[in-house]
């Protein structure tokens, strides 16, 4: 019997070997050598961490207890690999194009980068993973204890050995799992080590199997006979359990964090899946090949009551084959360690990325303050997470007492982690899947899993028997193992059925009822149509030709001078062999930082990515660019709108100002003219009144004459004021018309007699009375005022020796047209347009008018609905008055 000391030495030696392999593999990968590290074989072997100690030892135990049912655990992954490898390929492609770091990251990424979802998945994974780790620790402890029982020295203490195993595994995971920050940079060391371990465990199990068949049973024939004779050789297929277990193991194979880690995150080449599709089932087949024989022989050989879970160890031991038992122990140890290391790595990534970092960043005043020490913070977070997860596993093991309760925990964990499946598969194949759907489905499945499986399995301390028997608060339909009154089912089948069915239903219903955000929609398209968009990613490598493109782009953004300076500096730093720097990752990183100062981080990343081409521009990049541009666009359109508004206001102000200036000028001009018109007669009045006052001895003739001048000028002032008032009333439009009916002839009669009264009847007036028999209905006084004005003007201004004014009236097209034409020299053409303006006196001031008469006439005619105009080219001055005949009709 091998001593415990030897066993411990072998164990330590094995661990040192693993360290060595992992270290060497990391070194080789860093040096760019060792293509075999990225071979399909290594990938396939790394997948075999699916076979944990639970499988290594437990399969035999399971077979001993339940017959062939253990096969289901192998059948699930086999079916997935053989019939659904295209689905896995999609998963791998999505994982790589989206730079996914864990299954929580994948789910979060698919549903619009929801950290809530990531946290849910992380918690689920930790809850499911912790007992699983405890299970591995238990298996190592149990196997130790088998050897310890036989060891006389009694040095073995269970508690401390578990602690040291857990601590050692944590150190291994920390050393090789957190060397690189980017989870997408693969952990070659760890993967190579677990590939080695999978070879060891397969070899160990096969060796035990060969020993049992040929060494104990005596060949294949006798072995088959033994199996046939055994109870467990019978095909007792419980359809419900078989279906459930096959489905569960298939789901867990996809959803387990450690499986996701090796299958997606550590995947170096999609093509490896093709090999794994047949090689991994083959591996599983070999692993399961001798399970039944070992179980049968174990049941035969071992005493009643011995733990069938440990037959793999105890059968060789009982036959005195210590070295085989040692090998078997190493196989089980390998299974446990590889699982624990990868699980700790995967969980720590999730915990640090989705729990620790968000909290740390929020306490650091936002994600904007990303500086150099973030890298150290992330690494520290991962290391601490690994330690904490290992500690959790350790304490779970200690609390649960390491009893048989752990044995069933494997399937319980499977059922828990399978709750991710609807959201995962739905996210990959259904664009309609939404974040709300995923969250609701996950929550429903999670809660049901805890309620129907996890809590009832933990014993009476956590869930009282009364609840189990009668339901909470006596509600029978909520009994954890007979939900909604469905009784008599296997608890596992019952729980899986309800949790996954309601999970899927809730996921679908909530997805259909909710609307995805734009980011979700795009991510959904990116995931579901991943093969349409993505190219197989290569590294960020580039050529000098790309440096030229980068230079051109940088010049456009930074300007020619700074860009050249930056590139020159970089080229010198690289050794200065060429004028342009090589596009090394370091250079690209600095360039990106430089550019992001000008165009924003997302744009800079997308631009460099497009030129270097190594990483295709992700939807996230594009969305971030769009966001940045949208902000800019919105800002500039706001500016544009503001500037348009400003220029509109400015134009309005200018127009208003021009108008005001015009009005002001008009007012000034008018006032100035009024002032002039008032001052002129006043000057005469003052001058002559002073003369009459101050001058002695004025002759009577002079006195009369000067008094007459004063009188005339006073009258002129009065007329001017009358005219001004008249004009202001007419212009304001407040004039009230005094309508009356008369013929044109009689209106003219009155106007002529009024104009010529009291003056020398020098002006002759020629009229054609028959044409004046036009009846008019209008303001007779106002029309008469216009006629008087025109006749007086002729009287004043007609410069003919024998002045004659011809007045003629016509009825033209519904209008009365009356022309006043004299035989003088008329108004000079340049003044014709001015005659109707106020104070527009033409040809001197000899008549003493204020120059308002024609302006008043124009206003009056406008009020009467007609018009007055000057008729050029008639010889003398000619004015035409038009009046609509509608007035005549109104009069009749």
């Amino acid at each position, binding site marked *: 019997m091998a001593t415990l000391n030897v066993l411990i030495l072998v164990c330590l030696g094995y661990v040192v070997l693993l360290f060595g392999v992992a270290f060497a593999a990391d070194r080789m990968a860093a040096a760019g050598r060792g293509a075999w590290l990225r071979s399909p074989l290594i990938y396939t072997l790394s997948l075999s961490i699916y076979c944990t100690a639970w499988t290594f030892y437990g399969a035999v135990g399971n077979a001993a207890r339940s017959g062939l049912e253990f096969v289901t655990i192998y059948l699930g992954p086999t079916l997935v690999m053989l019939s659904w490898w295209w689905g896995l390929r999609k998963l791998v492609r999505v994982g790589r194009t989206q730079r996914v770091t864990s299954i929580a990251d994948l789910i979060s990424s698919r549903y619009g980068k929801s950290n809530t979802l990531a946290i849910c998945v992380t918690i689920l994974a930790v809850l499911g993973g912790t007992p699983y780790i405890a299970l591995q620790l238990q298996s190592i402890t149990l196997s130790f204890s088998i050897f310890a029982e036989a060891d006389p020295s009694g040095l073995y203490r269970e508690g401390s050995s578990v602690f040291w195993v857990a601590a050692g595994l944590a150190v291994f995971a920390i050393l090789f799992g957190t060397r690189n920050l980017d989870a997408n940079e693969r952990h070659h060391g760890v993967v190579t080590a677990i590939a080695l371990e999978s070879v060891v465990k397969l070899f160990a199990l096969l060796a035990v199997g060969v020993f049992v068949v040929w060494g104990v049973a005596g060949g294949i024939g006798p072995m088959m006979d033994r199996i046939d004779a055994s109870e467990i050789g019978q095909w007792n297929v419980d359809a419900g359990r078989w279906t459930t277990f096959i489905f569960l193991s298939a789901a867990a194979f996809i959803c387990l964090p450690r499986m996701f880690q090796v299958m997606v995150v550590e995947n170096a080449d999609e093509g490896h899946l093709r090999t794994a599709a047949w090689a991994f089932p083959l591996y599983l087949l070999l692993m399961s090949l001798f399970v039944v024989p070992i179980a049968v022989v174990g049941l035969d050989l071992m005493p009643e009551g011995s733990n069938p879970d440990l037959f793999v160890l105890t059968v060789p031991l009982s036959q005195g084959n210590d070295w085989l038992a040692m090998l078997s122990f190493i196989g089980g140890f390998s299974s446990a360690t590889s699982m624990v290391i990868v699980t700790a790595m995967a969980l720590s990534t999730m915990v640090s990325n989705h729990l620790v970092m968000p909290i740390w960043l929020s306490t650091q005043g936002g994600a904007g303050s990303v500086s150099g020490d973030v890298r150290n913070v992330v690494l520290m977070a991962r290391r601490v997470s690994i330690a904490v997860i290992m500690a959790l596993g350790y304490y779970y093991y200690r609390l649960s007492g390491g009893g048989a309760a752990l044995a069933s925990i494997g399937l319980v964990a499977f059922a828990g982690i399978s709750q991710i499946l609807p959201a995962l598969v739905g996210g990959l194949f259904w664009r309609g899947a939404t974040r709300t759907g995923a969250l609701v489905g996950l929550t429903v499945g999670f809660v049901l899993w805890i309620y129907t499986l996890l809590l009832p399995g933990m014993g009476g301390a956590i869930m009282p028997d009364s609840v189990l028997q009668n339901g909470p608060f006596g509600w029978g339909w909520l009994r954890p193992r007979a939900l909604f009154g469905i009784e008599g089912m296997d608890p596992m089948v019952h729980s899986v059925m309800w949790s996954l069915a309601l999970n899927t239903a809730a996921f679908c219903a909530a997805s259909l009822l909710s609307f995805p955000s734009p980011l979700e929609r795009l991510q959904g398209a990116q995931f579901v149509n991943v093969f349409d968009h993505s190219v197989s990613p290569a590294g960020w490598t580039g050529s000098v030709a790309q440096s030229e493109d980068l230079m051109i782009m940088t010049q456009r953004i930074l300007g020619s001078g700074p860009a050249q300076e930056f590139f020159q500096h970089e080229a010198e730093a690289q050794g200065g062999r060429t004028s342009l720097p090589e596009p090394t990752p370091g250079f690209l990183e600095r360039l990106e930082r430089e550019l992001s100062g000008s165009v924003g981080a997302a744009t800079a990343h997308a631009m460099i990515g497009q030129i270097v081409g190594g990483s295709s521009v992700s939807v996230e990049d594009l969305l971030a660019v769009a966001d940045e541009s949208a902000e800019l666009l919105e800002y500039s359109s706001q500016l544009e709108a503001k500037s348009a508004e400003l220029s509109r206001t400015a134009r309005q102000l200018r127009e208003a100002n021009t108008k005001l200036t015009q009005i002001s000028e008009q007012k000034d001009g008018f006032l*100035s003219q009024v002032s002039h018109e008032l001052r002129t007669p006043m000057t005469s009045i003052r001058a002559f009144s002073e003369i009459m006052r101050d001058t002695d001895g004025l002759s009577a003739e002079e006195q009369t004459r000067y008094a007459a001048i004063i009188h005339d000028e006073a009258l002129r002032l009065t007329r001017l004021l009358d005219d001004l008032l008249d004009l202001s009333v007419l212009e304001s439009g407040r004039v009230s018309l005094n309508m009356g009916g008369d013929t044109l002839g009689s209106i003219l009669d009155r106007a002529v007699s009024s104009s010529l009264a009291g003056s020398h009847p020098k002006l002759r007036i020629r009229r054609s009375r028959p044409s004046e028999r036009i009846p008019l209905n209008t303001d007779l006084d106002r029309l008469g005022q216009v006629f008087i004005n025109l006749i007086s003007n002729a009287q004043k201004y007609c410069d003919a020796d024998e002045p004659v004014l011809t007045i003629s009236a016509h009825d033209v097209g519904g209008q009365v047209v009356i022309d006043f034409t004299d035989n003088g020299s008329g108004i000079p053409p340049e003044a014709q347009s001015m005659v109707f303006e106020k104070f527009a006196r033409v040809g001197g001031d000899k008549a003493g008018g204020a120059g308002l008469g024609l302006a008043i006439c124009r206003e009056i005619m406008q009020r009467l609905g007609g018009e007055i105009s000057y008729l050029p080219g008639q010889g003398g001055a000619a004015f035409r008055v038009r009046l609509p005949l509608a007035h005549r009709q109104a009069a009749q």
Partner: protein
Amino acid sequence: MSRKVLLIEDEPNIAEAIRFLLTREGWHVETHAEGSDAIEVIQGANPDLVILDVMLPGKSGMEILRNLRQLEGMQHLPVLMLTARGQSRDREMAENAGVSRFMTKPFSNAEVLTAVRDLHAQATRS
């Protein structure tokens, strides 16, 4: 030799009043009522003093004065300007044009006489 004043004013009553006043002071008064030919009339009359209205038919008094001052021998001819448009802007314009004295209508007779005496005294002294 009697003193001669040329009165350019289109308002006949005002012209008559000024003629009356200055004649009694011993001036020989010539009148003209047109702006357009005023320069020629001034040159022809060769007066000791000009009284110039602003609002004249044909040519404004301002323009007449400005043109007059450009002519040789006319820089120092005393010109008394009378206007009914008594805004400060007009006074400025008149001063820029080279007026000797600027008065707004209506004026008092005494003011006109004083101004004429002063201007004549200055002219004969210099």
